[in-house]
Every structure is written in structure tokens, then in C-alpha cells.
């Protein structure tokens, strides 16, 4: 089975695709067509990509989206199969450092010209831009941004605790949780039990305690930082959070608990902005809950960046090339980003979109403001739990330690910190 020829074959294909200035010209000559792979099949994700497809067709294109339901792994299986078959989609969902990793196995499209034409570089957070131009050239475009450590507060639980102040630091968070507990809130922290859920608790804790250590240890895998006392402190905080959660959640998704959260049986939820989209789709009102940036011990917002993006693969067909140009333009378009974010509950990648208008929620405005402040104070970091900080292999090794710690209360915080460092070491 001559699998080794694949790369060579793909590289040969890239030579043909170098004749790319057909880019702009092709658009007028042929009907643009786009083949796309994503895992967005249901709920607000499905609705948003469907709306994007409609816009694409309004501009005269043919939209051929192939959703791969299930987990990200199955989506990647599909993408891998298409790449091995020498038939990658015109664009596909991919995010974080995986963009750089995957760009090494098949030729990607150089988007510099379209990005420059749209003036996109100026309005994207620099840390984020870097992930999408691994070789110095844009090959992927971020579409929407979430912060994975937004703090959702149930109004009814706040009433039970007789509190109205949103906690800013972890100490205040812990204080409020205690108050909720004594006020009759069964579980001060609402949560799901999936692996990313557990990962989010840890990253929110560490980044809130020290964004600098988070950056050094989790993003840069610095050995010394991985042994810093802040890591242990983060695990201590995670244990507190875990103790306030409903142990009966099992491996259920966080959305299973949304009703109990709104009803005030559960108090606070550390979750990404996507929970907003889910809450709204489920028919809950914005008065039922409040949203604020997650706890930060230096009181300045910490933003754990999670951005969905499309990577563009080289294709020779003129109609696909025209489709890629059109798609790139749409993804960067402020109106499209507005539409997309308003469906899913995210915020636009463009920092120049005005969120004061109707259609945006308070939560989204707060998220956008938090991003600006966090960038200014160098406290915008990349999410580990949602595959933004490390490639999948490293991420999974670290999450193994974290999820085991959350579910097993006999593991001591210092033990977990040591295991985390060991997991990093063995996955390098």
C-alpha cells in the first residue's frame, strides 16, 4: 500500500496550484462553489453555519457543506480521509495549533492577498492572528471568538444568597459560593462532566490566579513555570469548585443542567459564551442570569481565547477557487461576523465591530470589553481545554491529569501538579 507517495503526490499538486493568480479573475468567469467540512450540525452551531451558507448562495455561490456529526475526532477523520485521497475540501473547520500541524500534510491556500484587501490584519488580536498564519502567511481565517471562562450567575441563586455583587476575584467567588450554599442553593457551581468541562475549571483557575504563569506553563510549556506554586494553587481552587458541584452529573453535557441553573438550584457556571446561545435557544430569558468575565485575582479581566476558524486547502478547480475567495471575503465581513455571533452567542473576531446595537446581549458586550482590556493588560491567553494552547496530543495528556483530579478527590493538589508536569514531559 503506497501510502508514502501521498505526501509527494500532494506536494506535486501544490506546484500546479501555484498558478494561483487565477484567484480574483476566476470569480467573474465561473459560478463559485465551496466544499466545506465541519462538525457543526445541530443547535445554534448548525443554525449559524446554515445562515452563512445562505449568504454564500445569495452571492451566487453553490454551497456544499458536509457536516460530520459527533465529536471533533470524527470530523478530523473525515478531513484526514479526504486529504489522503488527494481531495481536500475547499475549506474546513480547524482551530488553534492544529492549523499549523495540518498545514504540513497538505498544501494550503495563501490568503495574504484577500486578507490585505479586506484590511483584516489590523482588526484581529495579534496572538490570534499568529495561529492562523503559521508560516508567516494567512492560511486560515478565524470566524468567531469565545472566552471559555465567562462567569454565568443565576439570578434566583443570587437572590437566595441575598447577594448582588458579581465576584471579581477567586476569594470573592469562594465567598459567594459559600453564601449560596448556606442560602439554600443545592449546588453553588453548575457544570457538566465532560473532559473539556473539567479542563475549563482548571484553566479558569490558573489564568485567574496568574495569567503570566498560565502563559509560561500551559502555552509555552516552560519547565520552571510548570513547577510554580501557582499551579498547585490552581488545583486547590479546582478542588473547591469540584466540591460545590453536583457529583451526580457524571459525563453529561453542561446543557443538561441549564434548567436547574436558571431555577436557582445551581448558582454559578464557568462556561464559554456559547452557553448564551444554548440558553436563548432553550427559551430562557436574559433576565434569568448575569454574565461577567471569570474571576481574576488582580481584578483585571482575564480572557481565555477560544476561536473557531476555517482553514483553506489548495484546489485547482476554478469554481472552487472562486468559492474560496468568496468564502474568505464573507468570513472577514463585519456584517457576516455580526450575524454569526448573534446566532451562537460568541463575539466577532474583528475588534472594530460595534456591539452597542440591538441584537447583542449584555453578556456579549461584556465579553468584547473584557477582550479589549485583557489584550491591553496582556491577559488574553489561549484556552487549553478547547485546543487553542497546544496540539491535540499534548492537550489530551494534560486534560487526562486534570479530569482525573476533578473526579478523584483523593489526589492531592501537589500530586496533581507533579503529574501535570510529568504528562507534559512525556508528551514533548
Amino acid at each position, binding site marked *: *500500500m503506497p*501510502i508514502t507517495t501521498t505526501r509527494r503526490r500532494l506536494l506535486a499538486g501544490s506546484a500546479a496550484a501555484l498558478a494561483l493568480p487565477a484567484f480574483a479573475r476566476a470569480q467573474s468567469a465561473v459560478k463559485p462553489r465551496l466544499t466545506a467540512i*465541519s462538525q*457543526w*450540525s*445541530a*443547535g*445554534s*452551531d*448548525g*443554525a449559524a*453555519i*446554515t445562515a452563512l*451558507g445562505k449568504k454564500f448562495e445569495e452571492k451566487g455561490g453553490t*454551497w*456544499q*457543506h*458536509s*457536516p*460530520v*456529526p*459527533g*465529536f471533533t475526532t*470524527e470530523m478530523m*477523520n*473525515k478531513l*484526514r*480521509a*479526504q486529504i*489522503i*485521497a*488527494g*481531495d481536500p475540501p475547499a475549506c474546513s473547520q480547524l482551530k488553534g495549533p492544529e492549523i499549523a500541524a495540518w498545514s504540513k500534510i497538505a498544501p494550503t491556500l495563501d490568503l495574504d492577498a484577500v486578507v490585505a484587501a479586506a484590511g483584516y490584519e489590523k482588526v484581529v488580536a495579534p496572538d490570534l492572528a499568529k495561529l492562523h498564519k503559521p508560516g508567516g502567511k494567512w492560511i486560515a481565517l478565524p470566524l468567531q471568538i469565545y472566552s471559555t471562562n465567562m462567569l454565568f450567575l443565576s439570578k434566583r441563586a443570587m437572590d437566595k444568597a441575598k447577594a448582588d455583587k458579581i465576584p471579581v476575584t477567586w476569594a470573592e467567588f469562594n465567598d459567594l459560593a459559600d453564601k449560596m450554599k448556606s442560602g439554600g442553593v443545592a449546588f453553588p457551581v453548575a457544570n457538566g462532566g465532560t473532559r473539556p468541562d473539567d479542563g475549563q475549571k482548571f484553566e479558569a483557575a490558573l489564568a485567574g490566579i496568574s495569567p503570566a504563569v498560565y502563559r509560561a506553563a500551559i502555552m509555552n510549556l516552560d519547565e520552571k513555570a510548570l513547577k510554580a506554586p501557582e499551579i498547585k494553587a490552581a488545583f486547590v481552587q479546582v478542588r473547591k469548585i469540584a466540591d460545590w458541584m453536583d457529583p451526580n452529573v457524571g459525563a453529561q*453535557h453542561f*446543557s*443538561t443542567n*441549564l*434548567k436547574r441553573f436558571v431555577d436557582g438550584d445551581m448558582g454559578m457556571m464557568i462556561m464559554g459564551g*456559547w452557553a448564551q*446561545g*444554548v440558553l436563548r*435557544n*432553550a427559551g430562557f430569558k436574559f433576565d434569568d442570569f448575569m454574565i461577567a468575565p471569570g474571576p481574576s485575582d488582580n481584578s483585571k479581566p482575564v480572557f481565555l481565547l477560544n476561536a473557531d476558524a476555517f482553514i483553506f486547502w489548495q484546489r485547482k478547480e476554478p469554481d472552487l477557487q472562486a468559492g474560496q475567495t468568496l468564502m474568505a471575503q464573507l468570513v472577514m465581513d463585519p456584517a457576516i461576523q455580526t450575524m454569526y455571533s448573534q446566532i*451562537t452567542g460568541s463575539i466577532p473576531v474583528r475588534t472594530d465591530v460595534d456591539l452597542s446595537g440591538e441584537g447583542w446581549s449584555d453578556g456579549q458586550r461584556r465579553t468584547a470589553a473584557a477582550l479589549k482590556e485583557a489584550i491591553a493588560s496582556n491577559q488574553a491567553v489561549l484556552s487549553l481545554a478547547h485546543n487553542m494552547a497546544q496540539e491535540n496530543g499534548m492537550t489530551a495528556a494534560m486534560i487526562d491529569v486534570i479530569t482525573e483530579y476533578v473526579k478523584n478527590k483523593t489526589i492531592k493538589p501537589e500530586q496533581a501538579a507533579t503529574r501535570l508536569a510529568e504528562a507534559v514531559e512525556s508528551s514533548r
Partner: protein
Amino acid sequence: MRERTFAPSRILIYLIVSLIAVAWLAPLAVVVLNSLRTNEEIAQGSMIGWPQHLAWSNYATAWSGFCVAETCAGIRPYMLNSALITIPATILSTLLGAVAGYAVSLWRFRGDNWIYGIVTLGIFLPQQMRLLPWTIVLRDTGLMNTLTGLVVIHTIQGLSFTTLFCRNYYVAIPHELIRAARIDGAGFFRIFWRIILPLSPPILVVTVIWQFTHIWNEFLYGVTFTTGQQQPVTAALIALSAAVADIPQHGVQSAAVIIAALPTLLIYLLGGRYFVRGLTAGAVK
């Protein structure tokens, strides 16, 4: 063992059997009940409960309503895809397996034991391991993203089971029967057609049931080797259950599970008696 009076021991037997049967039916009952409850009702109570009023709309939504991305056609088109993959692959793998089992058991040829041994070892080769090699094969044969490709995969993989079942069944056929036919001048196919096939229904029922349910329920290959419009029904079920950006839709999900399981359940209900009979005759050796 013969009397049919209601001796205490018989009452005990009925009691035990009924208790186990109830336990066995419980998961099905829960799904059926949930398929008639609204999503909100389930969210408020537990997953186990009696429907307040019968929400038949779950079935309508599951059959032709819910959306997988931009396609809002429910489970219906995916059922058709699954049928288009499962039926040909089941027929092909059963027929080829029957011929192969017949050849291996009654026509001894050089190397038959070896090849039979290797083929049946295929039962034990894990699915996950075969995913990438199949990708390469589909690329080289140009069958990527075609239903034909999936039929080919399931036929070749299915041969391991069908050959095993049929061979064990045919081994029990008296060889005098074949010898007599050969003396009368009957050849390989004629004997198969006239003698073997008429004797085969019990074991063919077993292989058909086995193959049909396995292929119908397959997910990994089904989503990797198809495009959106050709995905099998398992993909639609996953789309309903693993929705990250949605509150759980347990009601609709349960209805979809019931609809998707109907073909295989029916096959087991109709074929159950023959399943045991076929096993009695063959596969247990």
C-alpha cells in the same frame, strides 16, 4: 419435565423468567416512554417517567423534521442511505460466504485450511485499526465517498463471519449426498444450487440477521467514507445526541432511536426462531 401442571417449581420458573424479561425490556420501555414525552417534560423530571400526554410530534420531528446543519429532513433520507448500503452488502456477503463456506467444507482444495483460518481471524481484527488502510484502498480504487465503497468494505469484512457460519453448517452435510451428485455428473455450481442452497435457509437466516444488524448499526466508516448527503442513519442519531450547542432533545432523540432501530428489531423478531434453529444446526461446532 413433561407435566404441564402448575407445580411450585414451575411457578418459580415463570416468576424468574418474567422478572428477567422485565429487566431486559426496561431500557426499551424507557426509550419508548421518552419518545412520547416532550423535551421540557423530560428536563423537568427524570429520564424515567410516564408521559403526561402523548407527544406524537416527536415522531414527526424525528422522521422528517429535525435539522442536520442545513438539511432539515429528519431521519428519513439517512434511513434510505443505510438501506442502500446494508441490503446489497448483506446479500453479497451472505452469498459469497455461502459459496466460500461450501467450497471450504465440501470441496477440499489445496491451502483451504490456511485461507479459511486467515479469513475467520478477521472477526478479531479491531475496526479502529482498519480505518486508515481502508482510506488508502478507497483512494486507490476511486471509491471514496460512494455508497459502493461502503458496500465493498462491508462485503469483504463480512466474509469473515459468513464464511465461518456457513462452513460450520455445511460440514454437517453428509458427504454421500455430494458424492452421489458428482457421480451423476453434477458440477460445483449445480450441486450448490440444487442441493446445498435448499438445505441452507437456517444458516442463511443467521448470517443475514448478523450482517444486517452489524452493517446497519455501523458509524465510524459511515461518516468517514461518505459526504453529508450519503451519511447513514447512525450519523443522524449522533447529530441528535452529541449536539454541543443545544439543550438535550431527549424526546426527539428517543423517537429517532426507535425509528432507526425498527428494521433491525423487526428482523430479530421475525427471524429469532430461525436464529436459534440455525445456530443449533451450524455455528455451535
